[in-house]
């Protein structure tokens, strides 16, 4: 389905969603942090959107805000969109988890928590997946400094 | 009655009795025989290991050991020396006494049952008239050793391996026993040398008993491989699931005992098959009956090696069975087949359709 009619269907789901297409070949939807969970569940349940396959969930540090980028695809209707959500509180960033909508999010959100420190509420088992439990700091943040193993050329 | 070949026996026998009082002489004679069997046991064990590694290599496009000695003959001797010199390490929270005792159970079980086999007319240490029954009962001592080893080494994987081995051996002893029973029915006696006498005139038992004997042989081979924890049934030390199973924590000579005992068990299972199905040391169709210089025990070893090759062939071709499939194979397939086969054999003998 073309990006335009995708856009006006999604526009109806919640207010102040920002749409943009520059710099990426998919339709980007930026969702305010509070409306994330219900928009995403509608993205999946709505019959003519039917995004049932979240194929890539990326943690992102845009300088001041931290956030998550969801690449979603519908296996039946064969269209894709990119959902972005941001939070500008860097000390205790929390977003609500979407693992009950797409089960793959459970592991990917653990990875985002491990590297960016974004906590996900009502996530089944939020823990450090890759790094040792007593690792301090969030490695993939831009302001992470570690003289020992970071060779900055 | 111990009958050992070659005329040196009587000279040694008289010499002993002449210089020592009655009781002491017989005891020294036993010790000599025991030492002879221990040496035979060690040599057979070592060279079976080498044979297994060579045969495995030929199956798998490889060369097998060829660096120690020509064609790798001294490879297993080098292994044995290495294992002897290795430190026997007992891990911390291990049940000390049981941990040390376990390997000896396995070795003793294997060694005792070696004594009953008729390698040739005179070369049989212990010709008792309940031969098969004795063999059958001694073979269950090994399981206690494995269970003790698994439990005492205080390692979760070893415990699971030991439990599996207990399960497996107990259920497969049933079909080993029953298939042996079918053949004993045909042979008429439990004494091993008697069984061979029967086969001297009427030809090999597997030919005499035609169809039921062949079925009994197939069941015996399957159950025999399961008895020695080998081939498709090697759940006990399944590399990809339990690491090294019950002998994970053992090292040095203790590991060598477990390792050697497995090969000796294989030798025992194939020699029972040879005695009961293929006429022990009798030459096939009596071709070397007349020639006196041809050593009879050579036939015994040729037949045993053929059966051992068959068991090795199983090992390097089939994947492993799961625990519950192992039990369904035994209780739902082998056992009923065995019982039906027993009845068929009885009917065949009753109507004496045997050849």
């Amino acid at each position: 389905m073309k990006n335009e009619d995708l856009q006006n269907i999604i526009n109806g789901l919640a207010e102040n969603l920002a749409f943009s297409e520059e710099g990426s070949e998919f339709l980007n939807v930026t969702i305010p942090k509070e409306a994330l969970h219900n928009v995403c569940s509608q993205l999946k349940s709505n019959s003519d959107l039917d995004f049932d396959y979240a194929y890539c969930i990326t943690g992102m540090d845009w300088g001041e805000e931290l956030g998550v980028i969801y690449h979603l695809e519908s296996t039946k209707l064969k269209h894709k969109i990119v959902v972005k959500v941001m939070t500008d509180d860097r000390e205790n960033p929390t977003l609500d988890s979407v693992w009950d909508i797409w089960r793959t999010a459970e592991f990917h959100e653990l990875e985002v928590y491990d590297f960016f420190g974004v906590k996900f509420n009502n996530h089944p088992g939020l823990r450090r997946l890759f790094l040792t439990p007593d690792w301090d700091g969030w490695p993939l943040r831009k302001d992470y400094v570690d003289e020992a193993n970071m060779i900055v050329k | 009655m111990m009958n050992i070949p070659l005329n040196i026996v009587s000279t040694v026998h008289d010499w002993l009795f002449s210089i020592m009082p009655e009781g002491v002489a017989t005891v020294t004679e036993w010790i000599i025989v025991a030492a002879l069997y221990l040496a035979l046991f060690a040599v057979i064990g070592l060279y079976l290991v080498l044979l297994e590694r060579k045969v495995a290599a030929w199956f798998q496009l490889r060369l097998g050991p060829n660096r120690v000695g020509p064609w790798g003959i001294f490879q297993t001797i080098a292994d044995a020396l290495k294992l002897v010199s290795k430190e026997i390490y007992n891990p911390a929270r291990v049940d000390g006494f049981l941990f040390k005792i376990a390997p000896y159970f396995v070795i003793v079980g294997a060694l005792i049952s070696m004594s009953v086999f008729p390698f040739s007319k005179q070369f049989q240490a212990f010709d008792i008239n309940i031969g098969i029954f004795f063999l059958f009962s001694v073979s269950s001592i090994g399981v206690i050793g494995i269970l003790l080893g698994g439990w005492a080494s205080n390692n979760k994987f070893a415990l699971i391996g030991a439990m599996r081995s207990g399960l497996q051996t107990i259920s497969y002893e049933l079909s080993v026993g029953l298939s042996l029973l079918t053949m004993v029915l045909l042979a008429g006696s439990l004494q091993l040398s008697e069984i061979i006498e029967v086969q001297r005139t009427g030809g090999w038992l597997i030919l005499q008993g035609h169809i039921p004997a062949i079925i009994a042989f197939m069941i015996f081979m399957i159950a025999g491989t399961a008895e020695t924890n080998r081939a498709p049934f090697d759940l006990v030390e399944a590399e990809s699931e339990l690491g090294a199973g019950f002998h994970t924590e053992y090292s040095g000579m203790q590991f060598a005992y477990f390792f050697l005992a497995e090969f000796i068990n294989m030798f025992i299972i194939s020699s029972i098959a040879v005695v009961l199905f293929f006429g022990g040391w009798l030459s096939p169709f009596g071709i070397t009956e007349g020639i006196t210089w041809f050593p009879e025990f050579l036939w015994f070893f040729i037949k045993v090696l053929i059966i051992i090759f068959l068991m090795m062939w199983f090992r390097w071709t089939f994947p492993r069975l799961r625990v519950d499939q192992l039990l369904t194979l035994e209780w739902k397939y082998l056992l009923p087949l065995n019982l039906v086969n027993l009845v068929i054999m009885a009917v065949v003998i009753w109507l004496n359709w045997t050849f």
Partner: protein
Amino acid sequence: MSYFSDIYNGIKTLLTGMSVTGGYFIRARKGSITQQYPDNRDTLKMFDRFRGEVVMPHDDHNEHHCTGCQKCEIACPNGSIEIVWDRQVDPETGKKKKMIDKHIYHLSMCTMCGLCIEACPTDAIVWAQNYENSVYDRALLTKVLNQPGSKVKAGIED
């Protein structure tokens, strides 16, 4: 009934499996693919593009092509090339010119990616095909590629 049929085709599949390994056992004499490495050392020849180790070829006048432009050092992902250069007076033109002093190559850190050889404008460094690079002392892995007393071939400009 199905009881006997699945015993029958069970045994049939087991026998086909054994026939495959049996076939290999019979042809074992010529079928083995083991390379007896220490014995066949002299006959073992690597392919001509094999990436063994980075070396700097020198012609018979002990001259090489490296002008010290550091393009390879920049291209290397894990810093296994260090160029030590200094300014010397060029005999012909009399001007100050950048001359290569030492081209240090850490074989221990090199991941054989080939980006340095691709980035070199004067083809000064190429792949050597040796495959026995293991040493007992880590210091031996830090090599200086340009031989002592060698200088740039005339006419090579970066």
